[in-house]
Structures are given as C-alpha cells and as structure tokens.
C-alpha cells in the first residue's frame, strides 16, 4: 500500500499479466511502473470459509477450475473458469485480475455474480467488502479507488441449489471472447416445483456483467414450468440486457441469444 502511495499515478498492478502485457504491447499502457502483487501473502491462497470459499485475488483461474474443493462446493464456478481461456492463459490469469480488468465479457463474473460473491478491497482508508454486483462501474471500470482487490468471498449456497454456465463463443474454444455468457444458479423448494431463489447473471450484453433482476423477479415463487421460463427469458433479453454491436456479434443477435440461453439454462436446472 505504502509503495503504491509513493508511486501514485503511473502504476499498474501486475498479477497474471495476460491482459496487462497485451495492453503494454499494444501501446495502450506506456512508461508505467509495474508492481507485482502475486507474492503478497494470502493473495495466492484459496481456502474454505464456513460452507463457502475465500479466493485470494492472485489465485490462477485454472487452479480454481481444477480444484476438487471448488468442483465439490461450486461446480458452476469450476465450469465457468475451465473455459475462461486456454490452458496457458488459465495458468497465469488470476481471478482478481479477471475481475479488476472489468471487461463486460469477463468469464469469471457471471458465475460469481450468480453465486453472490463479494470482493474485499484494501486501500489507504482501510478495508471494505463490496458485493460483486456493485464492483463494476462500466466497461473496464471498477469502484477501486487506489485500492487492491485482495479476496473474493463466495458465500455458502443452499444444498439443493444448482448452477449452469453457458458461454457462446464464435468457435466454442475456451480462449474465445464470448458473444454472450449466461450463469444461472437456482434453488428449488422441497417440492421442486417452485424456485425459492434464482440468480441469473449475464456477460457481454451490458457495459458490465450484470444480474438479470427483471427476469429473476418474474421467477421467484412461481411454478417452474415452460411459460414462466419463457417469460423470464424474454425479460432478461428485453429488459435486463443492453447489448451493443461489435466485431463478435450484433446487438439484436445478442438479445436473441440471451433469451435462448437463459431459457435453456432454466430448463436444464428445472429438469434435475
């Protein structure tokens, strides 16, 4: 912290480097001082926390994806991180870096949003715990104010909860930047006919990764059946998603895919 204070502007934090070095080579970042944060204690540690998880910001995404602990407690997260990038990228990319880079298409974000994760930010004024949903403020922008993202807390989820992650990419290869990504985590009641809790998160269809709150509201306490699923998917596409057109896809295609993928995810979860 004190080092960063001393250097003030012109400092970039180096974790996995998979985004940073590309930006440097592109000329988007110049003459900066890099502070390597990988070896700060605890940033590279991953541990269970009650029935949840505490991920150090500098843990590699592939390490998380392959961890038996994560596969057991949060298969949704493991599934998402397995396709965050190639093996080589995943062996360097960090969970904190992926979040702090704040791409609207960040592959770790939808799953973590659906799991209602929070991030711990440490700065000159002290520490704060911020729900991930409030962490992103725009494309490539976060609420970090001269702070370091040190930990990601994933709270325990009800036993009956199940999640699914879809990443729609141009090739289906893990290194693809997604056109649309969808993570859904849903908790059915004892009868399995009503969802007591549904979290739907979308990537690459808004200035930041988002929760599809309109869609979720339409599902809570409702019977899990075709009609409700369709309505919710439509709301996610029309009310929650605010996609743009870019080299990977048009806004209208993205909207259409949100509808299809959210519906599929809900259907898949309702069948289990």
């Amino acid at each position, binding site marked *: 912290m004190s080092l960063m204070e001393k250097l003030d502007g012109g400092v970039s934090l*180096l974790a996995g*480097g998979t985004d940073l*070095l590309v930006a440097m080579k592109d000329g988007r970042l110049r003459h900066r001082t*890099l502070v390597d944060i990988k070896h700060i204690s605890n940033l590279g540690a991953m541990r269970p926390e009650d029935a949840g998880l505490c991920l150090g910001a500098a843990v590699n995404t592939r390490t998380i994806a392959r961890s038996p602990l994560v596969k057991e407690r949060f298969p949704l997260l493991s599934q998402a991180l*397995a396709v965050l990038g190639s*093996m*080589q*990228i995943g062996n*360097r990319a960090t969970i904190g870096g992926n979040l702090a880079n704040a791409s609207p298409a960040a592959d770790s974000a939808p799953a973590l949003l659906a799991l209602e994760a929070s991030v711990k930010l440490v700065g000159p004024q002290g520490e704060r715990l911020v729900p991930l949903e409030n962490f992103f403020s725009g494309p490539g922008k976060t609420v970090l104010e001269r702070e370091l993202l040190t930990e990601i807390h994933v709270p325990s989820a009800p036993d009956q909860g199940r999640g699914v992650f879809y990443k729609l990419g141009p090739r289906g290869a*893990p290194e693809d930047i997604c056109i649309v990504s969808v993570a859904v985590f849903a908790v059915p009641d004892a009868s399995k006919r009503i969802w007591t809790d549904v979290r739907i998160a979308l990537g690459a269809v808004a200035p930041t990764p988002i929760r599809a709150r309109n869609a979720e509201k339409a599902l809570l306490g409702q019977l899990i059946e075709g009609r409700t699923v369709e309505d919710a998917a439509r709301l996610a596409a029309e009310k929650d998603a605010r996609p743009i057109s870019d080299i990977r896809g048009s806004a209208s295609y993205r909207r259409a895919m949100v509808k299809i993928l959210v519906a599929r995810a809900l259907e898949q979860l309702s069948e289990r």
Partner: protein
Amino acid sequence: MNITHNIRVIINGQTREISVAPNETLQDLLRYRLGLVGTKSGCETGDCGACTVIVDGKAVNSCLVLAVESNGSSVTTIEGISSNGELHPLQQAFIDHGAVQCGFCTPGMILAAKSLLDEDPNANEKDIRLALAGNLCRCTGYVSILKAVAAVGKTLRGGK
C-alpha cells in the same frame, strides 16, 4: 532510465543468473538473449501458443510472462525435454504419427501436451482437446497431433 533486475532462474535444469530489463518478456530472454530459439514467436499476444514453455510445472505463453517474473522459477523449453539425443516419447510420437509439418507450432504443442500428461496421465480425448486448444496449427488440422498425444498417454498408462 535503464533499470535492470537481477534474476536467478533454472532453465532446462541449469541455474542462470541474468540481468533483465523490466519490460523484457521471458520469450525475449529465451530467444534473443539466451539463444534458445526452439521457443517460437507467433503472435506475441498470447493467442497462438507457439511460445509455450513450462514454468514451475505449468504451461504458459512466454510472450505474456515478464522475464523478471520468472525469478526463482524453473523453466523448461523444448531444448530441455530430450536427454543426450534421446527423444521424449512425445517428440517420437509426433514424428511417428506425422504430427509435424512446418514445425512452427511443434515446440509449443509438445510442451503443452507434456504439461498436460505430467499433470494428468489419464487425460482423455476431451481433456487433450481442451488442453491444446490454445496451440494453433495451420498445417496439420490437429488430427495427427491429437492421435500422437493420446498414444503417449496410453503408453504412460501402461497400454500398448
């Protein structure tokens, strides 16, 4: 301002003490300063895998690792996996299965495959595809590469 960092890194089993520039990548260090040109440069942005080396047991794109970050690490390049002219099983399998054409993706591909099989000797076809997805090849269409790696996996597991 000409800052350099002194690093100590084990490359192919040999400990080296080197002075590196802060913006020098591991790829630059290996290829242009240490003359280990087996590691190739295909894109320099982490998209093609031609620069893959193994650092502390993990396959990484050396173009996205700063030399200074490899301080204290053990690095294996393609030059380091055969011993005394005897080929590593993957190298032999690539030859036998016709998995080498122009050869440019080959060092990175072999190292990526090696790191996978070292981690997981039971890797199945799906695992192999996933692990090698970050290594682009334009010549072979991947079929013979996947076969070669699967064959070595099978041998390691004691199969024929």
